[in-house]
C-alpha cells in the first residue's frame, strides 16, 4: 500500500477568520482580567490562618439552643416560598408561551423574551422596596417579591422546554383534524407538564434558600437570621441555620420526588 496523506483541510476564509477572532478575544479577555484584578494572596492567607479556627469549628458545632428559632423561621420561610413559587409557576406559564419561538414565531417571541429578561434584571433589593410599599412590611410582601423574582427565571426555563417539544406528536394531532387548542391540550401540555413541575419544585427549593429578600421586607425568614448571624459574627448560629436549610431542602427533595412519580 502506498502511503498517501489526506489532503490538508480547506476551511472557508470566514471560518478561519472567526476562529482567529474568537481566540484573540478570549486571550484579550483573560489578559484584561488578570491585569485588572489584583489579589493579595498573602494577606488573604494570613487572614485565613487566623480566622480559620474561629469560623470553621464553630460552623460545625451548631448552636442547638437556636434550633427552636431556626425551625420556626424555616417554617415561615417555607410558607412564604411556597406561596411565592406557586404564584410564579402560574404566572410563568402564559409568559413562557409568549416567549417561545415555536409558539409565537421567531420575531413575535422577542418581546416576551425581553420582558422576562427585564424582570430578571431587577435585583432583590428593589423588588423588596416595591412590594413593601405596595402591601407593607410583612410576609405577604415577601411572597410577592419571590413570586415576581421567580417568574422571570421560570418563564425563561419554561419557554426553553416548550421550544424543545417533539414536533412529530403535534403533527400527529393535526393530522387527526385537531384544532389549535386541542393540539395544545393533547400534544403540547402532556409533553411539558412534567418538566414544568420539576422546574417549579426546583424553584421552590431555590426560593427557600435565596431568602435574603425576606429580611429587607421584614418578613423574617431565614435570610434575616443569616444577616444578623453574620453581622454579630455568630458562626455557631450560622451552623444551625445551615443544618436547618440542608434538612428542609432534603425533605423537599424527597417529597417532590414522590409527588413527581405520582403525577409524571
Amino acid at each position, binding site marked *: 500500500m502506498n502511503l498517501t496523506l489526506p489532503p490538508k483541510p480547506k476551511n472557508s476564509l470566514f471560518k478561519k477568520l472567526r476562529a482567529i477572532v474568537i481566540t484573540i478575544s478570549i486571550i484579550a479577555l483573560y489578559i484584561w482580567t488578570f491585569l485588572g484584578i489584583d489579589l493579595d494572596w498573602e494577606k488573604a492567607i494570613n487572614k485565613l490562618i487566623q480566622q480559620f479556627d474561629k469560623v470553621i469549628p464553630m460552623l460545625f458545632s451548631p448552636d442547638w439552643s437556636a434550633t427552636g428559632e431556626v425551625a420556626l423561621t424555616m417554617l415561615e420561610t417555607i410558607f412564604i416560598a411556597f406561596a411565592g413559587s406557586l404564584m410564579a409557576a402560574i404566572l410563568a406559564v402564559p409568559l413562557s408561551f409568549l416567549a417561545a419561538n415555536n409558539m409565537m414565531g421567531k420575531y413575535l417571541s422577542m418581546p416576551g423574551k425581553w420582558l422576562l429578561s427585564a424582570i430578571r434584571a431587577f435585583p432583590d433589593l428593589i423588588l423588596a422596596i416595591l412590594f413593601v410599599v405596595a402591601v407593607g412590611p410583612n410576609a405577604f410582601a415577601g411572597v410577592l417579591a419571590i413570586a415576581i423574582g421567580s417568574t422571570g427565571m421560570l418563564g425563561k426555563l419554561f419557554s426553553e422546554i416548550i421550544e424543545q417539544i*417533539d414536533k*412529530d406528536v403535534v403533527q*400527529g394531532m393535526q393530522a387527526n383534524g385537531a384544532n389549535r*387548542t*386541542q393540539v395544545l*391540550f*393533547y400534544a403540547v401540555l402532556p*409533553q411539558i407538564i412534567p418538566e414544568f413541575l420539576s422546574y417549579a419544585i426546583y424553584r421552590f427549593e431555590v426560593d427557600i434558600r435565596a431568602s435574603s429578600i425576606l429580611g429587607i421586607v421584614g418578613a423574617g425568614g431565614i435570610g434575616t437570621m443569616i444577616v444578623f448571624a453574620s453581622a454579630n459574627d455568630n458562626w455557631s448560629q450560622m451552623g444551625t441555620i445551615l443544618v436547618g436549610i440542608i434538612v428542609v431542602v432534603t425533605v423537599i427533595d424527597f417529597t417532590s420526588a414522590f409527588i413527581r412519580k405520582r403525577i409524571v
Partner: protein
Amino acid sequence: MIEFKDVSLVYPNGTQGLKNVNVTINDGEFVVIVGLSGAGKSTLIRSINRLVTPTNGSLLVDDEDILKYRSKNLRKLRTKTGMIFQNYNLVKRSNVLKNVLAGRLGHTGTLRSIFNMYSKKDKSLAYESLKRVNIEEKVYNRADELSGGQQQRVSIARVLTQQPKYILADEPVASLDPPTSHQVMTYLKKINKEDNITTIVNLHFIDMAMEYADRIIGMRAGEVVFDGPASEVTEKTFEEIYGRSIREDDLRGGTES
C-alpha cells in the same frame, strides 16, 4: 377518490418535492408507494391531508380541490383522512386510551376535549378499536411502556377511532423487525378490506410492497415512474424505480441516495 392533477411541490429551500404528478386513487384500493429515500414518497402522502401544500396543479379529494382549503375545511379533510407515522407519533406520557381517543378530536368540541368529556359512544369506539388490533389489555399503560409494534398498533387504533375514509401510512413498519412488520401490514390490509377504507402506504421494501399491495406506485426524484398492479411489477420495474438494478455490484463510484 383522490386525484392528483399535474401536482408539483417546491419546498421553500428550492428542493423539488413533487414534479408533475398525475395519479388517481379509487375508493377501497390498497396502494403502496415505493422509492428511494428522498424520492418524494412522504411529500406525496402528506399532500393528501395537506401537512404540506403543493405549489402547482390541483389535488382533488372526493371531487373537491383541497389545495384551496383553509382552516375550517382543512380540519374536515383531516378528520376524514387518518394518518399513521413511522415513529408512531404517540404522546409518550399519555396512556393508551387517551392516545386513541385523540382520534376523535376532529369530531369533538374544543371544550369537551379539554375536559376529557368524551361521549360514551366515543369511548366504546376507542375501546373497540383497541380490541381490533388486539391490544385492549394495555388500555391504561403509558405509550412509552409499549414495544414498537405495540405502539404502532395503538396508532392504528387511533386512526380506526377516527373512522376515516382514507388511511395514509408513512413507512409504518420502517422501525419494526420483519415478523412484527408483517403483523402490522396484515392489520392494515385487514382494515382496508373489512371497512373498505382506501389505504395508501409508503414502504422501503419491495418484497413487502409486492405482498400486500393491490397497486404499486414507484417514485423517483419527485416523479411517478411506475404505476400499476402489483402483478405487473418486474425486475425492470425496480431498475426504473431505483435507477439501477438492486443486485448490481456497484462497488466503485456508487452514488449514495
